[in-house]
């Protein structure tokens, strides 16, 4: 008598879990480490709504700058983040040290 409702409840949970899994993935945070003047990973794939968090392990200030676009200032030994608003493929660099380069591929939500 008691097992029946429990079993059907379980099925309901499984169904619910599958529904959530099938829906578009929730926006997440992607971490990029900066160490010894290198963005790593250098190239990342994200989607609109995702947040990029740059964690700066250097004692130097850096930026993540898109020419003619956005810029994140990343102080020494600190992190900075930015939420992606537009889809597309962009190169970014550090304005203070233009030899530091990264790439972002941002998919539509």
């Amino acid at each position, binding site marked *: 008598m008691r097992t029946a409702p429990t079993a059907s409840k379980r099925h309901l949970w499984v169904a619910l879990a599958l529904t959530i899994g099938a829906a578009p993935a929730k926006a997440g945070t992607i971490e990029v480490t900066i160490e010894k003047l290198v963005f790593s990973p250098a190239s990342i794939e994200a989607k609109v709504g995702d947040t990029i968090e740059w964690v700066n392990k250097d004692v130097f200030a850096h930026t993540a700058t898109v020419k003619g676009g956005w810029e994140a200032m990343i102080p*020494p030994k600190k992190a900075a983040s930015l939420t992606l608003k537009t889809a597309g493929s962009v190169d970014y660099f550090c304005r203070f*040290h*233009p030899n530091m380069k990264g790439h972002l591929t941002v998919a539509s939500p």
Partner: protein
Amino acid sequence: MFIRSTTALAALFLLSAAPLAQAADKPTDPQIAHIAYTAGVLDVEAAKQALEKSKNKEVVDFAKDMVRDHEAVNKQALDLVKKLKLTPEDNATSKALTEAAAEERAQLAKLDGAAFDKAYVANEVAYHKQVNAALKTLLIPSAENAELKSLLETGLKLFQGHEQHAEHVAGKLK
């Protein structure tokens, strides 16, 4: 600026001219530490002169970046020599760099406005190029301590960034 570059370059070549030089011609770790530290101090001094003289925002921002970065890397260098119980040793290259920088500062002191800005930034390009060449071909290969070598490698990446940054500012001043 040409005087400074030529003298300093000649000094750096003194150490690097003979590829098959005997061990005695290779700078030692205490000398390498002294050269790298001196190169940083001299660039901070050049930047401070620019901060006093320039009114151009790009130039002032660049000079502030130089002070901040070179002071930060030199602080790391001081912490490292302390940790390694290494006493930086003055040498001909450090002396030549210091003399050349003094000459350059005297030349720049005579200039004002846009002429100063252009000369300062052009010299920053030349100076970083020259220090980077020395790091790459002489100082890094000669360094024996692994931590010192690693700091010099980070320094090279940092100064290569400065060289490109200076080239960018120079392009904007044209």
